[in-house]
């Protein structure tokens, strides 16, 4: 009994260390973002101060920052919708149609998820340029399918596999066609899966940096690329940099806390089953 309690205390302490390690950088970011600009990089750090939203107002008053905030919303929402619309029929093919090479097709989708973007970007850059799609929302939304669609297909696939086949048979006997079966029978049953995919793809598009660095431009630059250029633009203005960072991560972190359970299920499904 005594031994067990000691064990629990030790375990709690180890978990506390983990949580400090994982949360400290984010808390520091938040903490620095509400400091007076001059206090931000004073050493030793000032622990007690009156919080201010000065940095946020300053960042939000910058035209380029607001423009790229808008760009990021457009690209993230657009790519997330298209990913979800494509993932549902894709997962249907992988779970409901029997054909030779289905296993290989499923594996190949996972391989794309693991492939390095640099393997595709040279050609994509050349092609998008010749089609006039460099620095366009459409180009970014298209390219973001590479990072979002494979995972989305796998998550929906895992949810489809849990639907008993009898439901579809019954619907077929009632005279429903395949479109109706997907939209009226299957989709309502996998709502949590669809929500997970929508949010996950949104986050992918919102956070993406590598492709955006190369194929976005003055008109479509997204937030990750913009705040990265803050560093050189502003020297060591940590106040602005940290508040801009908080603006970038806050929506995503709130989302991910909200959908944590479906999210963990989806990710685990995408990698284990």
């Amino acid at each position: 009994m005594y031994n067990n309690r000691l064990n629990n205390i030790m375990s709690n302490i180890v978990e506390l260390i983990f949580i400090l390690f994982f949360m400290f950088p984010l808390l520091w970011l938040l903490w620095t973002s509400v400091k007076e600009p001059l206090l931000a990089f004073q050493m030793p750090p000032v622990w007690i101060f009156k919080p201010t939203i000065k940095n946020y107002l300053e960042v939000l008053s910058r035209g380029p920052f607001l423009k790229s905030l808008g760009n990021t919303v457009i690209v993230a929402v657009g790519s997330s919708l298209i990913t979800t619309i494509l993932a549902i029929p894709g997962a249907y093919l992988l779970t409901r149609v029997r054909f030779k090479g289905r296993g290989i097709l499923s594996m190949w989708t996972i391989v794309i998820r693991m492939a390095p973007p640099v393997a595709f970007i040279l050609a994509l850059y050349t092609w998008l340029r010749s089609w006039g799609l460099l620095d366009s929302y459409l180009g970014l939304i298209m390219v973001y399918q590479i990072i979002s669609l494979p995972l989305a297909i796998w998550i929906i696939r895992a949810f489809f596999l849990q639907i008993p086949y009898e439901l579809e048979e019954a619907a077929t006997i009632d005279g429903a066609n395949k479109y109706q079966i997907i939209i009226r029978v299957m989709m309502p049953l996998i709502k949590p899966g669809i929500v997970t995919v929508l949010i996950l793809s949104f986050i992918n598009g919102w956070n993406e940096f590598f492709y955006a660095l190369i194929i976005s431009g003055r008109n479509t630059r997204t937030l990750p690329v913009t705040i990265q250029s803050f560093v050189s633009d502003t020297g060591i203005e940590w106040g602005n940099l940290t508040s801009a960072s908080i603006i970038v991560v806050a929506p995503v972190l709130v989302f991910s806390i909200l959908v944590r359970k479906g999210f963990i299920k989806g990710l685990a499904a995408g990698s284990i089953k």
Partner: protein
Amino acid sequence: LNNTKSWSEKLFYILIILPFVVLSFLTLGPFIYSAYRSLFHWVAYDPGNIYFLGLENYIDIFQSRVFWGIMGRTFYQVSTTIVIQLVLAMIFALLLNRDELFMTRLNKKVFLLPMMTAPVVVSLTWKMLLNADMGMINYFLNLFGIKSFNWLASYQLAMPSIILVDIWRSTPFMVIILLAGLQSLPKEPFEAAIVDGAKKWQTFRYITLPLLAPTIFVALLFRAMDAFRRFETIFIMTGGGPGRSTETLNVHTYFQAFEYLKLGYGSALAVVLVLTMLAIALLLIRAFRQ
């Protein structure tokens, strides 16, 4: 009537194949194009002057000392990251699997956050934390009487710093996979172990670990591939420097293609990167089968 039915049936098959056509068009197509272009002399500042070289780009790569240095660093980065991460993630997952603990209930709500944070923000934040003069890491070290380090500007410490940040960012992903694995283990062997009076460590070593092996393998495979592609941390925190001490194959390829504008040579490097990753994946799969 028959005609419309077959028409809508055809459309249905087109729709369910479409996602894979899109994916092929965006990945397989570009990769084949890159592989083809890797056989050419092709530089961005002289687009009119493209000519066939055969395998010369590859010969250049394999004869370059820089390339082998970069390969070595890449392997060092990938293997160190995933091994440290596996140990940490395993401890963390075992703890998170014990719902009766107070901290577990708290931790489960927040442990995903590093993974969801935009990689750019992660890199910028750690760049500030690791700052030599004004960073919190040095401040804490000084509190314990340890002198400051110039983390990102030092040949010895830059790569470990990059690895630290990657561990911070992606350990939660490994935890998710291991935790899912732990929760799907059968109960019977553990009950039998308790009846037999096995110690906790023995239970872990002889029951949990073997049963969890497939999950561990998947986690390692995913994370190894992910570590190979690591870009933001290096690009933003060190830009590959100091010297080339943090330039990995992925970052090197980017620089060759988009900074030095050597598109043909860069294509060849991209092909080498993909083949290297494939080889590592196959080796891991083979090692696991045995």
